[in-house]
């Protein structure tokens, strides 16, 4: 059964305090891994797609990396506006059209 596990469930950081979020997955034949950001009352917003181990993508203070079993979302010198829930997802083994989502990491950045 496909599984996506995110840790920690919640993370509180001081402004400027860098950290990493983890997304581990068990799926046969990875066909991509997606990172999303979700603000309260809104739908998830697409951030990155990673396709192969060793790949990295960056956007402002965020950098996503991928290994064969997990992905990390590194947040460098975060600001309060980075506070959100971060979700990762992978295409299901049975169908690339279906994504399996993790439960997310709720990030709070304190000023």
């Amino acid at each position: 059964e496909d599984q996506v596990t995110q840790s920690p469930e919640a993370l509180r950081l001081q402004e400027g305090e860098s950290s990493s979020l983890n997304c581990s997955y068990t799926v046969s034949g990875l066909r991509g891994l997606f990172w999303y950001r979700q603000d309260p009352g809104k739908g998830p917003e697409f951030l990155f797609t990673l396709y192969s181990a060793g790949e990295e993508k960056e956007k402002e203070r965020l950098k996503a990396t991928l290994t064969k079993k997990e992905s990390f979302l590194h947040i460098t010198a975060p600001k309060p506006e980075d506070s959100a829930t971060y979700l990762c997802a992978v295409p299901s083994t049975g169908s690339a059209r279906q994504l399996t989502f993790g439960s997310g990491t709720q990030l709070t950045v304190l000023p």
Partner: protein
Amino acid sequence: DAGITQSPRHKVTETGTPVTLRCHQTENHRYMYWYRQDPGHGLRLIHYSYGVKDTDKGEVSDGYSVSRSKTEDFLLTLESATSSQTSVYFCAISAGNNSPLHFGNGTRLTVT
């Protein structure tokens, strides 16, 4: 919001009543999805569509039906709403397999 409109944004209904949620897109994307999001479960796929009149079931399809008569519209129907269907429902679209999903802002449904 990638040209996705969900309606209504909020709805309260009684157990046993039918409910239809609408998703409208202006991106002309082939794929459309309905997800529900619940605390402790994350986002779970209900149904999806890969073209006009082409739909398939997702992980949690029991109690739900969908229809897609036009590229731009994807309807989710709860034939007889139950309290377990209280949730936030998200519509998403994508251009193709392995393309990222883009989500609407959701419909909060409460079944009393």
